[in-house]
């Protein structure tokens, strides 16, 4: 029984990790909390859904389309909502409002497009569970966990080993100096937005499969935010650790008290964490930079 909870918790945590990582990428590079991330998840999940319905495609293709759509929309969003603020170097407050507004815009577009209804992805597999002895793992959980791990591993490899990854890290560290060193800062920011959007697409599809697809699906982004607060804002590693921890604790608590209270638990977990260790697991920037 307890092993079952751990497995379910890890599967849930892996989706939270994808959300939290996408959020952290932007936080790292532009130092603001991107509140449009949730609505972007919904938007790209819906694009994937309508693709799946019209073309009758496999899950892999749907994921790919959603990720691509998420990435492209994210880049477009950067151009419309953040480019001018980045260039003019005004107060980070404006990033904030821009991202909230952009999120509202995405959600409004989705609501107009699909209406307030609930949608279900077509069934992608014949059997829905895998049995390992007494443990039952739902196939979607398994695929969710495996592909989240794969996506995160690829991302880490990209950030740590490639030329673009190095540029990304240096722009995150100090945008101006990186620019002076000949890095095309705007292009790197766009790259970060593309990656973050692609992760939003991935998370959106899995959340849509796990729950149902509806215009407010993006509200689940709160879990990702909470995970990155627990992990330490802006740290990709912390985000993953925080997400797994949140997924496990939440599954455990839900097991005792019912799923309706899940948001209350995650909020309390976050509050306790902030009181005990405000810098998060990874321990990064908690104070306002001068």
């Amino acid at each position, binding site marked *: 029984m307890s092993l079952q909870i751990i497995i379910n918790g890890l599967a849930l945590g892996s989706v939270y990790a994808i959300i939290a990582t996408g959020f952290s990428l932007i936080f790292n590079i532009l130092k603001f909390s991107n509140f449009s991330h949730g609505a972007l998840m919904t938007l790209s999940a819906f694009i994937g859904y309508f693709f799946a319905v019209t073309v009758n495609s496999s899950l892999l293709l749907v994921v790919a389309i959603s990720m691509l759509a998420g990435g492209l929309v994210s880049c477009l969003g950067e151009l419309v909502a953040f480019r001018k603020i980045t260039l003019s170097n005004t107060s980070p407050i404006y990033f904030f409002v*821009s991202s*909230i507004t952009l999120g509202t815009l995405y959600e409004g577009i989705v609501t*107009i497009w699909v209406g307030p209804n609930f949608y279900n992805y077509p069934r992608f597999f014949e059997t829905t569970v895998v049995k390992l002895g007494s443990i039952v793992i739902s196939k979607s959980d398994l695929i969710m966990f495996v592909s989240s791990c794969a996506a995160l591993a690829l991302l880490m490899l990209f950030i740590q080993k490639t030329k673009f990854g190095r540029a990304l890290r240096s722009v995150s560290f100090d945008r101006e100096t990186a620019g002076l060193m000949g890095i095309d800062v705007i292009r790197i920011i766009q790259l970060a937005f593309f990656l973050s959007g692609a992760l939003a697409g991935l998370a959106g599809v899995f959340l849509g499969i796990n729950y149902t697809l509806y215009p407010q699906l993006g509200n689940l982004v709160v879990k990702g935010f909470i995970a990155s607060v627990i992990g330490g804002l802006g740290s990709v590693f912390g985000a993953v650790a925080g997400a797994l921890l949140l997924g496990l604790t939440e599954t455990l608590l839900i097991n005792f008290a019912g799923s309706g209270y899940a948001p209350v638990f995650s909020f309390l977990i976050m509050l306790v964490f902030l009181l005990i260790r*405000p810098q998060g697991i990874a321990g990064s920037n908690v104070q306002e930079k001068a």
Partner: protein
Amino acid sequence: MEFYLSVMTFTLISVIAVTGVYVLTGLTGMFSLGQAAFMAIGAYISGVLVVKVGLPFALAAIIAIALSVLVGYIVGLPTVRLRRDYISLVTLGFGEAITALLNQMQSITGGALGFSGIPQKTTFTLAVASAAVCIALVAYFKASKYGRQCIAAKSDELAAKAMGIDVARIKMIAFLFSVAVTAYAGVLYAFYTTYVDPGIFGWKKSAEWVIMVFFGGVNSLTGSIIGTAILTALPEMLRFAAEYRTVFYSILVLLIINFKPAGLFGEYELSLKSLGIGREKKNAA
């Protein structure tokens, strides 16, 4: 006439809520995405106290505001010392938690079906008077020592600290003040519509208020109020569909942020002086 009166009452209630948001966002530079949850707390507590306990309206309102401030203190305690992103992330989680609680505690709140049977106590006159008092309080707060400390902390926290301002304390004061004002707006709302349900107090509502503040001008109380009045009343009058309204809002605000970041009113504040009457004329004479 009835319809216009109701639109105006709703607009006034929104104005009250937004003056609270203005203290937090405009003056202190913090964003609360759980502000609507405080409105929900004010609405539900006062409603339950009147309907189920039988307290008089005024007493219930005072208790509701006090309890909201207490809850706000608990939420604010771990966050005011940290960078400003935390308060928005924490309040976002808080808002979701409150919505879930309201949905779950069916025996008290009526769950997702909502809580009804609240007597209608909010009149147009009460709304006007309340809005006037709240605006006056916030204007006074802005001009006071605290308001100036807020503005200093917003512009540069480190410099404000160096000048001897207790930044964590001033952030907390601003947060609690805004919570109290918003909770009061919740009380008025509940006793006007006579019915509340958890769905209307999500983070979207909080985000909408932030957007209204920025539409009018983040540094101007006058701008925030007029911005709210325009963005609340106009779509109601024109009978826009709600979905189109949010899209319309968002595009408008994106344009403003891109091309006129200070908002419609910039730093302008309406006062007797700026209208060219009152003191200046006396001086001239």
